[in-house]
């Protein structure tokens, strides 16, 4: 189906006077349990500018072709972490990739391994369960200081990488172990634990390590590196997991 671009012609830039805008095919995995038990693939022709992000193209479909297309997005600038999806087989934030970098046909699916509720929306509860289970908050056993809890720059740098997580679930839902075993805590929960385990102000490291030592904890990780590839924040996820393993190892032996 060809859809006429109903957007006002781009007001600025050379594209406005140049040839007809380029188009791209979005192939989206649609699922609506109210109408069909099976998911189906739909293709949409979408015009785009070189500066358009994938999220812009998807929203164009939603606004101009099919308003029932369901997805989560909020900030549109890679901050809120709500629009993780599987793009051409790899997990990406739709607001962080440009359409022009993705080829003439873009395959879009919900992130994998979580129950799909509708189209690109998945049930994030199992993901949050794992997050909650690692106690992702400051645990202390000393008296509350009257001022802030100070920390040296080196101590702060120790866990800097894992503070950047925006909980988009791109890592956890790119993990083949998580796909097959929903009990596995998944990379994100380990990243969240890492952020506190290696914080010099925190006193709950042992407890968290104990949790991650469980049967479905860090030992399930097979260093596939899918999580590191998927993370839109560039967090070295696999490295963080390995550091937790090492901490467990040296605590035991």
């Amino acid at each position, binding site marked *: 189906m060809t859809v006429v671009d109903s957007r006002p012609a781009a007001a600025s830039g050379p594209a406005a006077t140049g040839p007809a805008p380029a188009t791209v095919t979005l192939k989206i995995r649609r*699922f609506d349990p109210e109408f069909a038990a099976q998911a189906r693939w739909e293709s949409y022709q979408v015009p785009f500018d070189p500066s358009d992000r994938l999220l812009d193209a998807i929203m164009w479909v939603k606004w101009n072709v099919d308003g029932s297309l369901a997805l989560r997005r909020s900030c549109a600038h890679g901050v809120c972490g709500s629009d993780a999806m599987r793009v051409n087989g790899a997990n990406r934030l739709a607001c962080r990739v440009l359409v022009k970098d993705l080829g003439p046909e873009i395959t879009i699916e919900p992130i994998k391994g979580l129950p799909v509720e509708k189209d690109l929306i998945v049930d994030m509860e199992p993901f949050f369960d794992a997050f909650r289970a690692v106690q992702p908050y400051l645990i202390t056993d000393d008296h509350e200081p009257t001022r802030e809890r100070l920390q040296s720059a080196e101590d702060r740098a120790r866990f800097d990488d894992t503070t950047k997580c925006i909980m988009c679930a791109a890592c956890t839902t790119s993990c083949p172990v998580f796909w*097959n*075993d929903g009990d596995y805590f998944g990379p994100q929960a380990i990243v969240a634990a890492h952020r506190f385990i290696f914080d010099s102000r925190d006193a709950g490291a042992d407890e968290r390590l104990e949790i991650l030592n469980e049967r479905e904890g860090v030992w399930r990780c097979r260093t596939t590196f899918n999580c590191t590839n998927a993370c839109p924040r560039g967090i070295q996820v696999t490295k963080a997991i390995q550091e937790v393993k090492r901490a467990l190892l040296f605590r035991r032996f």
Partner: protein
Amino acid sequence: MATTAAPADRGAPELAAPRSPRRRTKPGTAKARSNFELHAWVFMRISGLLLFFLVLGHLVIMNVLDGGVQRVNFGFVAGRWASPFWRTWDLVMLLLAELHGTNGLRTVINDYAERAQTRFWLKMLLYTSAFLVVTLGTLVIFTFDPDL
């Protein structure tokens, strides 16, 4: 609107729609806490490293060095096993390889067998076969009689 077939997927095969994984228990609850998985993990690294040398050495001796596999017969084995060194080598290789492989398959079963019953029976099969191989192998190594 064109509806097309599913694309070639990258990675594991697709889970059935709506693609929910099995979930056995809530994380962080109930599960017995033990160091078993940690020890299994360490065992895999160490045995893997040792097996690398043991198996390569075994392959070279059996298949490459003077005459290779052609010279292997009862007499050859009897000659080798006259020395406790080679008996130990073979025993260690047998135990490490069997346990390394068993633990690897245990992980694969945990990953891919969806039903609790299937998991249980597959693992029973695995452990039985491992037990048989280890017992039989150990028995032969210890009771081998060159004057047979």
